[in-house]
């Protein structure tokens, strides 16, 4: 057990902090639309141009090739500098890119990696289907090989920002006869391909900004060379990136939420006056969240410590389940503290917006119920019940 950083690590921290403080965008990130795309790309470009992009990417692909500790330092400073969360670049940087790095051909690497890192292309995900949510492997979107092309027909749903994306990591069924995990392929899909139709899906926190799209593929044609890994081996390709992001990026969220709790303490004192104390119902919840956010951050450090020693990734479900629930409690308390003003959802304040968004934290990336199954079965060794 050790909290210490080497002199080189501390030096790196100084440099990161200095650069971030000087360069972080001061403008508020738009909640949707092309403005949001431009904002996110510009910020990614800013990082790339200064040599601060791809902290977890190997150097040979233009990344910084940092070890886990340095990544952690980077994200800590990132959060402390209030750097924006560039959600639109997330899939490219953390799923699509890393998958190509791990399993792509030289040609695929050459073509697709740099545009992700340099803030030219936005990637989205095409995994979930209308009838395969928690049960991802039962996906049905078909791809038939026709010469040197795949012909894709079917539908994907819950594609965040699909309407603002250039490329998609797409899972399709190439062998309908095989067992459900076997006949799947992982495909690089260009969002300008004819035969793709998008249906926007708004979310409840900003009903006038499209967040998800549903994708309809009607005999959309993709070159066979866009399959990453082998045809029918897509499940293993998809799983290969699960371990890529080893929890270092989560630290930014923990630090941000810890800041938010501090803001809330201030706001509660402003609002409820000097007589506001820890024994107040809000005070008790704030105190509890101060403790819980400390623990959430420590859990992230633990996740990184485990990753360094290659401990079972199922253990990460413990952190995800806890953090998702705590974040929801933080947002709910923020919403409660503002009292009657929670009935307003102003454009220039995010408290209500993010309260509503927080309902996603126990749904996205595996519902809390699925997380609990994983913990029960893979961490605790309880028998499967299905």
């Amino acid at each position, binding site marked *: 057990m050790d909290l210490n950083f080497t002199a080189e690590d501390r030096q790196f921290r100084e440099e990161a902090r200095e650069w971030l403080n000087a360069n972080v965008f001061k403008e508020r990130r738009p909640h949707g639309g092309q403005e949001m795309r431009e904002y996110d790309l510009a910020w990614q470009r800013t990082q790339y141009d200064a040599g601060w992009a791809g902290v977890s990417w190997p150097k040979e692909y233009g990344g910084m090739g940092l070890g886990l500790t340095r990544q952690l330092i980077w994200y800590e400073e990132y959060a402390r500098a209030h750097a924006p969360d560039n959600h639109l670049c997330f899939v490219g940087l953390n799923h699509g890119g890393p998958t190509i790095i791990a399993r792509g051909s030289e040609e695929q690497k050459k073509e697709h990696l740099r545009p992700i890192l340099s803030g030219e292309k936005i990637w989205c995900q095409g995994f979930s289907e209308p009838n395969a949510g928690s049960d991802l492997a039962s996906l049905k979107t078909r791809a038939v090989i026709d010469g040197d092309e795949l012909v894709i027909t079917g539908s994907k749903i819950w594609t965040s920002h699909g309407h603002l994306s250039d490329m998609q990591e797409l899972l399709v069924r190439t062998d309908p006869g095989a067992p459900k995990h076997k006949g799947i392929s992982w495909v690089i899909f260009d969002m300008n391909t004819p035969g793709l139709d998008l249906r926007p899906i708004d979310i409840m926190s900003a009903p006038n900004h499209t967040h998800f799209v549903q994708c309809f593929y009607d005999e959309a044609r993709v070159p066979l060379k866009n399959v990453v890994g082998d045809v029918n081996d897509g499940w293993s390709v998809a799983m290969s990136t699960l371990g890529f992001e080893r929890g270092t990026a989560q630290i930014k969220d923990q630090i941000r939420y810890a800041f938010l709790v501090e803001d809330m303490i201030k706001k509660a004192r402003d609002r409820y006056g000097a007589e506001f104390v820890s024994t107040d119902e809000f005070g008790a919840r704030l105190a509890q969240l101060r403790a819980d956010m400390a623990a959430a951050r420590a859990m992230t450090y633990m996740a990184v410590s485990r990753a360094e020693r290659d401990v079972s990734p199922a253990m990460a479900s413990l952190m995800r389940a806890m953090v998702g629930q705590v974040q929801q409690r933080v947002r709910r308390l923020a919403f409660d503290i503002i009292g009657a003003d*929670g009935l307003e959802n102003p454009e220039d304040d995010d408290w209500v917006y993010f309260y509503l968004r927080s309902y996603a934290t126990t749904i996205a990336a595996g519902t809390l*119920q699925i997380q609990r199954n994983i913990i029960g079965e893979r961490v605790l060794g309880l028998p499967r019940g299905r």
Partner: protein
Amino acid sequence: MDLLPSSDQQQIVDTIQDFLRNEAPVDRLREFGAIGNSDAKLWPKLAELGFFGLSLPEEMGGIGLSAAEEMLVFQQFGYHLISPAIFGTILGARVAAFSGDAHLRDALLSGEARVGVANSRGAAGGTDAFHLFEADEAELILLCDDDEAALYPRSAFTHIERVNSTDAVLVLERARLGDSVEPRVRVSKETENIHARALMLMGAYALGIGQGARDMAVEYAQVREQFGKPIGSFQAIKHICADMAIRSEAALCQASFAALVMDDASPDTEFHAVASKIVACESAIKNAADCVQVHGAFGFTAEANVHHYLKRSHVADRLFGGLREQRRRILTFPTPA
């Protein structure tokens, strides 16, 4: 002693249920633009059916039924997410009636006049700061607190400013009540406790919201399949639904009891009205949140109706004073009988 509706009462429930199912399906809220006050087009029909004067004495132009029938009807208003302007109109008619203004009373009972609802912004803005709900086209605005209930002309408010409503289908404004303005009519608590009635009816309305969310979740759990089975067959989902049913049952029983106690003119009327609002708003908020979770990603979209229940549950909770205020209030009452 009987907490269940009589057959006469059940007939009233069936009537309003049929009417709202046809005229105001929750799907109506999906169409942006056709929002909020559009429910006002239902008012004349509801008035004609007698729902606006249900619990007013016949000599005041009402139907002469009791708080129990009114509770049952507001439960249906909540279930169908009818605009909270309904509180302004129906309670407004009561204010007019008990203040002795028969002309205004009859105008309100006819459903032609519109009445918005003012809600204190509390700690946020000082004593003169309000939110106005569904008041942009309203002639009158209901303001109801512990001491009295009153109808103000819209012109009594100043600094009116339209703001984005969290419950986006409702029209929301910030406003201040002008200095030394007088209401058009007012009724003191001693004459008629309209505030207690507002809390009791908000309990009924919130009960309906929670039941709507419960039914939506149960229906989805029966049809949505994962891993080859309806998700409602998994205990993780089944038990969420069971908890929703438990909360709705608690809210239903307390709402019924609160209405009966009010009809009895018991000294515990306010206590049970507040208890009902507390229990019912909790059932509405928690059921709506659970309903999101049961729906997964779909529940998080603006396409599913779930979010309307969630947002409306918060409106119900904060109208006439939020949970923090109701908790303060309930501790002030003596031990109920």
